[in-house]
């Protein structure tokens, strides 16, 4: 990939990929995020786990401003994103070019064939030529193992295939960080595996990733760090082995027991 060329360690420490400081998000009367602070290093793979309603998806959606926090500081690769005022369209476009997202429900455009799903945003947002966009799309489809599905419509694909297309679509924009919002939760376990395999492959090639997930095994094997959230707060975070085998808080222990006992 052109822009996700491995950064040198010095640069990694210099500019974190994502910095969140004191992020507060409210839905009506409900405080969904209670002053959350978190840093994601460039090249890092972070897994966020926690019971549903804990705010992990909301936190993810704050990073590309699908949710608007009412206060806090948000910086993405050094670009600080204003939260106290209406963001200018240009700034928002800048932010979203850096941040790619993969959704739980894939959200492919059903009226466009797979290839067009991947080329349209490249042409409209990155102003790539049709040829260039197609070449890139085919290369990425190959990479997620769907080289033969370019002309199919999303509705004809399995959920796992759709999600892999969605990953290719996000990658085609050359984002510098990829957000995954429960990418396998809508899938049968068998189909989830093929998506996880693609994600594992991405992680190994140094893509910066933040993954909200219920897949404890994936978190344990692939992530550099696990963050546990509950009730709009971060309970604990650290090395996967350490968090999973020796959780520090009672709430985390309870959550992990529930997940493992299933």
């Amino acid at each position: 990939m052109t822009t996700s060329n491995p950064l040198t360690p010095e640069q990694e420490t210099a500019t974190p990929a994502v910095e969140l400081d004191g992020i507060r998000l409210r839905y009506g009367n409900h405080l969904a995020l209670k002053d959350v602070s978190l840093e994601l290093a460039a090249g890092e793979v972070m897994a966020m786990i926690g019971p549903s309603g804990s705010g992990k998806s909301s936190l993810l959606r704050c990073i590309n401003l699908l949710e608007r926090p009412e206060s806090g500081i948000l910086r993405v690769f050094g670009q600080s994103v204003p939260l106290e005022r209406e963001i200018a369209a240009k700034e928002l476009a800048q932010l979203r070019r850096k941040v790619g997202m993969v959704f739980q429900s894939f959200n492919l455009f059903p009226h466009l064939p797979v290839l067009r799903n991947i080329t349209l945003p490249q042409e409209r947002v990155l102003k790539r030529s049709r040829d260039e966009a197609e070449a890139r799309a085919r290369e990425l489809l190959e990479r997620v193992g769907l080289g033969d599905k370019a002309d199919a419509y999303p509705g004809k694909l399995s959920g796992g295939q759709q999600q892999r297309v969605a990953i290719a679509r996000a990658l085609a924009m050359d984002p510098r960080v990829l957000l995954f919002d429960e990418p396998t939760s809508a899938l049968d376990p068998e189909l989830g595996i093929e998506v996880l395999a693609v994600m594992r492959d991405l992680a190994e090639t140094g893509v910066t990733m933040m993954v909200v997930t219920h897949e404890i095994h994936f978190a344990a094997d692939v992530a550099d760090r696990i963050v546990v959230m509950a009730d709009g707060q971060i309970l604990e975070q650290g090395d996967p082995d350490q968090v999973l085998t020796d959780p520090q808080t009672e709430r985390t222990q309870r959550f992990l027991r529930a997940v493992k006992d299933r």
Partner: protein
Amino acid sequence: MTEMLNMVGQWMPRLLDGLWLSLQVTGVSLVLGIAGGLALAVLALSRKRPVRILSTVVTEIGRGTPALVMLQFVYFGLPQTGIMLEGFAAAATALTLTTAAYTSEIIRAGLKSVPQGELEASSALGISRRDSLRFIIIPQGMRIAIPSLLGFSILMFQVSSLAFTIGLPELLSQAYSIGASNFRYLEVLTVAGLLYLAVTIPAGWFTRRVERKMSQHL
């Protein structure tokens, strides 16, 4: 019986001329009106409140006014303001206005039924609002609206019969003037009714087929 058939045979050329004119005025009004309806529907999605309100007011006035009033207004009323339209243009103008108001509601519903997740995906990809309207929302919204638009088109074809009140020689005018000349109102109007049915009933079947096909695809 043969006498009857002979008579109908004599009327037929005029009636078919009338039918053709009915179809023309309907076609023109639908093409222009649906374009207007799409424009109103897009304005209704605007982020600017005054624009949304304007679109709603125009739509409600257009929907609340009977097509007959619209026709008479354009043909008999507008000349007072200096706008003189002859029969066909007046009928097409009035029916276009009515079509725009009604179809804007239908299209708006279509545009709104595009799933929220796709809009989120398109903004996460950095696609501008304009582009997501053009490439994501409108193509899908219009497609969802097709069955309702077809149903409305059949209705509009029926409404075109009101253009006889402004002297447009469409199907009903032709039938009525034949009736006035020979006092065979019942027969000639019934034949005209059957000609309308010959269009509306197959069109209804077609609409239902499209509807079924589309519901299978979703």
